[in-house]
Each structure stands twice: as structure tokens, then as C-alpha cells.
């Protein structure tokens, strides 16, 4: 207990850091993921190509390498941003590839006739996707998106090695101060569990809610 209460501020700061990283990256990943999924099912071949490249490059690159690419690469093009923003870019883009594939799998569960009927009524591609296909895909993509965001919360720990304040990184401060390393990690793990179990709970609720709503 002592480790936690003696260093409450450090832990709290790290916890908030992880929470913020996860939240902002998740928002970016969800927006990008849906947009890239739209590209992947678009009638325009170059858009489909872009979507496929985006997903395959990001999904198959180790996340740490991606962090290096963003943190070391972007400044070479004169793009200098706070480390937090770099971290959000790396995490958000990486996770968007997984969100995209979850959304695309959901889109594929909707019978093609739904989209054909919408298009034959004169709806544009965007209307067809937004009004007809995605709402019907929504329920089936809730569980995989939940898993993806849990993975994101854990992946955010990598940002600690890139000067971003987050939960895992607090162990360095604490071990320098000579605190028991086992308890230090136990409380870090508890912090992650609080975040990941909350995500699970939210998604379990969403899944249930959308099930009852038909």
C-alpha cells in the first residue's frame, strides 16, 4: 500500500497520461479507421488501393518502429510537435488499421442487396454507407473494436519510452527512489486493469444495448 500512497501524485499523473493517450488516440483511430474502411469498399479503384496500402503498411509494422518513424522522421520534414502529439499520431494511425479491418468485416456481414437497393434509389456512396450499411454493420463491429481499443490502451505504454508521461513509465521514477519494484509494478498493473476493464464494460454495455434495440 505504501508504494501507492507515498507516490500517489506520480501514479495519478501516469494514470491520467495513459488515459489521455488512450482516449485521444482512440478517437483518431476510430475516425481514421471508418474513413479508411470507406475507402476500402469504395467504387473508386485508387481509393481502394490507398485503403489497402494504409492497412497493410500500418498493421504489419512493429509499433515501436512506427514510433521511431514518427518521432525521428517527421522532424526531418520540419514537422516538430510535442511528444504527446507524436505518440497520438503513431498510436492512432497504427490502431486505425485494425479498426478499419473490423469495420470492413462488419460491412461484409450486411447483405449486398441492402447497398444495391440504396444505390438504385439514387443514394450516393456516402449515403449508402452512412444510412444503410454502417448502421447495420454497427452491432457486429462492437466486440472487435472493443478488443482493439484494449490493445491500444496497453500499447500506449510504448509512448513512455518517448518522453510521454504515462503509467508504465512511472516505474523508472519509483525504482530510482528505491521503492519495492514488485509493488511498484503491481500498482501499475492495477492502473491498466482499471482502464481496460472499463473499456470492456462500456463495450459489453453497447453490445447489449444494440441487441435489445433489435
Amino acid at each position, binding site marked *: 500500500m505504501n508504494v501507492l500512497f507515498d507516490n500517489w501524485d506520480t501514479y495519478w499523473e501516469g494514470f491520467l497520461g495513459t488515459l489521455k493517450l488512450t482516449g485521444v488516440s482512440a478517437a483518431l483511430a476510430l475516425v481514421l479507421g471508418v474513413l479508411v474502411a470507406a475507402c476500402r469498399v469504395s467504387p473508386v479503384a485508387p481509393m481502394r488501393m490507398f485503403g489497402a496500402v494504409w492497412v497493410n503498411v500500418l498493421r504489419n509494422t512493429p509499433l515501436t518502429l512506427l514510433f521511431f518513424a514518427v518521432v525521428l522522421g517527421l522532424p526531418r520534414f520540419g514537422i516538430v510537435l510535442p511528444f504527446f502529439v507524436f505518440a497520438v499520431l503513431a498510436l492512432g494511425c497504427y490502431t486505425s488499421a485494425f479498426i478499419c479491418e473490423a469495420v470492413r468485416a462488419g460491412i461484409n456481414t450486411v*447483405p449486398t442487396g441492402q447497398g444495391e437497393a440504396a*444505390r438504385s434509389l439514387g443514394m450516393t456512396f456516402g*449515403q449508402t454507407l452512412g*444510412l444503410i450499411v454502417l448502421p*447495420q454493420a454497427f452491432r457486429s463491429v462492437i466486440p472487435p473494436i472493443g478488443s482493439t481499443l484494449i490493445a491500444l490502451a496497453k500499447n500506449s505504454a510504448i509512448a513512455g519510452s518517448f518522453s510521454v508521461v504515462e503509467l508504465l513509465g512511472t516505474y523508472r521514477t519509483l525504482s530510482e527512489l528505491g521503492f519495492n519494484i514488485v509493488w511498484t509494478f503491481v500498482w501499475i498493473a492495477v492502473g491498466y486493469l482499471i482502464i481496460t476493464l472499463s473499456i470492456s464494460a462500456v463495450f459489453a454495455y453497447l453490445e447489449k444495448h444494440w441487441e435489445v434495440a433489435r
Partner: protein
Amino acid sequence: MTDAPTAPTPPGPGPATGRPLVVLQGVNKHYGSLHVLRDIDLTVDEREVVVLIGPSGSGKSTLCRTINRLETIESGSITLDGQPLPEEGKALARLRAEVGMVFQSFNLFAHKTVLDNVTLAPIKVRKRGKAEAEKRARELLDRVGLADQANKFPAQLSGGQQQRVAIARSLAMDPKLMLFDEPTSALDPEMINEVLEVMRSLAAEGMTMIVVTHEMGFARSAANRVVFMADGQIVESRPPAEFFDSPQSARARDFLSKILHH
């Protein structure tokens, strides 16, 4: 109007105007090595009702779907009201709004009520007001005999009812042309007539229609012309009485003997 599906059979189609609405010229399409449409020439006049028949796999659905560009073609041209079909995009969407399509599997929007199915495209595509769209939708649902089902979801309706909603949904866009791809093939026998009656009344009112169907009674009584397809080609194109009473090609005779003798 409420009981359109059970009303006595309206008279046959009116005379076509002789003004071409849909013109296909030299249309070809392949699926891989399969040549599904071979040099198709077909003109459908305003107010004309054309029934497309032919053996399974002869390309009827594909032909029907090229007309609103759900399927693209490789060569030849298709014009609607004098305009060539546009490339994918806003212009194509506008054109599709003018062409109703009724599918074998109904394809009602599963997450929307019957009323929302009928009002959605008028509101989102035609930008009509909600109240106006709903008023019109209720009239159309009344016309197909389903005024009392407006708040149900598609899954709560029988196949015949779903197909009548699908027709109402198309009509809500005030289309110039209606395409029907085997609209009664997925229905239990007792529901076929309620759908055919709606289609007959549309034909009698002068809607231009292209109908893929195996319902020979409908073809005889409601069509101006029967187009017989086999292996991706149009083999015969004649008034129904002539076609059924004295088919000219061996393919058509063979096909008719198969479907009429049981």
C-alpha cells in the same frame, strides 16, 4: 385503391408512345471468360412493358442491372431518355433516382420501418420535407394495400407484403422506368398474385417497365412485348401472343415446352 392487390385484373398495357426511353446498342459484358451479354440491342419505349424471359443463366438479371449501372458494361452504349449512363458519381446517383428497381429478394432496409423505407430516399435524395414524404408514402402504402403496416419492420411482414413495400419504395421516387428482376420468384405461391396485381395496375397506368419473370400469365396479359434471351443473346422480341402461340426459334420452343408442360 386500398385493396389493389385483390381488385379485379386491370386491362392490359396501354399503347407505347413510340418515344424511346431506354436504348441499348451493341452491349457486351463478360464475367471472366463467360460472355454474359453478347451484342445486345434493345429499345424500350415510354409506357412500354417488356417482359424478359429465358433459361436460368441466360443473362436476364445482368441485362436488367446494366440499365441502372449496378453492373458495368465493356462495350456498346446504354442511354436513358437520350442521356448516356454516367460514370460512378453524383450524376449516376441522380440517374438512378429516376429508375426504380425491384429485386427478387426484396432488399428492404432491415433496420428501418416500412414507412421509413418508403420515405428515406425521397427525403435524402429528393430533399423533400418529412411531412410531405410521409404523406406520399402513406398514399403509396395504401395503394399496395399495406397502409396498416407502416410502423412494422420488414422482418415482421410476409414475403408478398415485403415485395409490395419494395414497389412502393421505388414508386416514391416517381421513377420514369421500373426494373423488376424476378419479383415473385422468392414468394410462396399464394403471395405471387398480390404482387402481380400491383404490377398489372402499374402497367395499366402507363409505367414503363422491364420485367424479368417466369410468370407467363403476367407476360401474356400485361406485356407489350416479350424479349426472349438465351446464352447472353436476344433471340426473339415480339408481342406476347405471337411469341407464346408461335415461337420462331428452336430455343424458344424448347424453353416454352419445358416451362409450360408442368
